């Protein structure tokens, strides 16, 4: 169960971004994840309230975008969807493929609520 460690690392990044941009709070966090990342999305979601408690992101919504496992065949060149433990080409059945997607665990974006500047009345 390494998802808590990963979630804490995610929170560090989010807090840094919020601080640098002078945000009041973080409203959403979008993470892209594939089955070959080694991270279980549900466990990451479970870890999130623990990791985010007391931070600027404690009320943020954690959005997880699931990316499918896709491979490109080095023999016939075609691209197809695959299972995490069966990365073979659907077209020609060859095992010599490269991964196109499915191993991501990436912080894609964060949405911030900005602090209103009292002097100018402008949003930062």
């Amino acid at each position, binding site marked *: *169960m390494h998802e808590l460690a990963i979630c804490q690392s*995610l929170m560090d990044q989010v807090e840094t971004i919020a601080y640098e941009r002078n*945000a009041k709070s973080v409203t959403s966090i*979008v993470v892209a994840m594939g089955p*070959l990342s080694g991270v279980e999305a549900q466990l990451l979601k479970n870890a999130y309230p623990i990791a985010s408690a007391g931070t600027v992101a404690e009320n943020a919504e954690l959005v997880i975008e699931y990316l499918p496992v896709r491979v490109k065949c080095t023999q016939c060149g075609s691209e197809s969807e695959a299972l995490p*433990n069966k990365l073979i080409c659907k077209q020609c059945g060859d095992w010599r*493929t490269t991964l196109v997607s499915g191993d991501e665990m*990436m912080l894609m974006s964060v949405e911030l609520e900005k602090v209103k500047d009292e002097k100018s009345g402008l949003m930062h």
Partner: protein
Amino acid sequence: MCDTCGCNITHGNESLIRPGGKLQKTESGKEAVTVLHSLLHENDHTAKHNRDHFDQHSVLAINLMSSPGAGKTALLEATIQQLDSNIRIAVIEGDLETENDAERIRKHGVKAIQIATGSACHLDAHMIHQALHNLDLSEFDVVFIENVGNLVCPASFDLGQHLNVTLLSVPEGDDKPAKYPVMFRTSDLVMISKCDLLPILDDFKPERAKGYLRDIASTAPVMELSSKDKSGLPQWIDWINQQIEIRKTYLEQHPVSAGHAHGGHEHHHHHEHEEIKA
């Protein structure tokens, strides 16, 4: 992927950040910030720093992974005995508790640093960085990192190693690559260990294990070895020697700029670090 040049925008995720994509919409008064960093950005950064440090001293770093009890320490002991004595070895041991493995290595006259991870199920780049403070890399040619016995978590954490070796011991069963594809996909070499047990545990078929590895598109070579009866050891020793040469050639062609890795500071620090028993 590097997090800086945009190479992390892949065919798989580009639809998310395209204008009108999910990551672009935002309400007024809010700001959407595109990040595109790995969730382990900080770990990956430290891992790169570790790798630069190994490279500055032309040290080859090999990360050994397996389930608990697959024979990582026994393999290291056999390796120490068989490897040319001109090749200077150090070992970084990762376990939840005890100094047992480090003590086994030290009995062979080899420097070993034990990292006790407490409850952590894996080593991470920061732990290795800390261990490197207790290791003068100019004295070594190869550093073996014996990861925590676990086929799940260690696969996600780059430590700064050059190569991953995964052991699959005969008593575990030949379908482990199908069950733990993330781990076996990261392997540069898969070693079937405890092969002296093959005649007894004859439901383990090395060919079947290789088949499961091909199913996950692994091009890693597979070796069969027994640290006990020493069969297969010469092949493993040859592989290590080969990898040392490959790394040397690589570094001759891609020299590491001095000072770059550490922003100028060498690793023999004068400041205090938490002591790891060495």
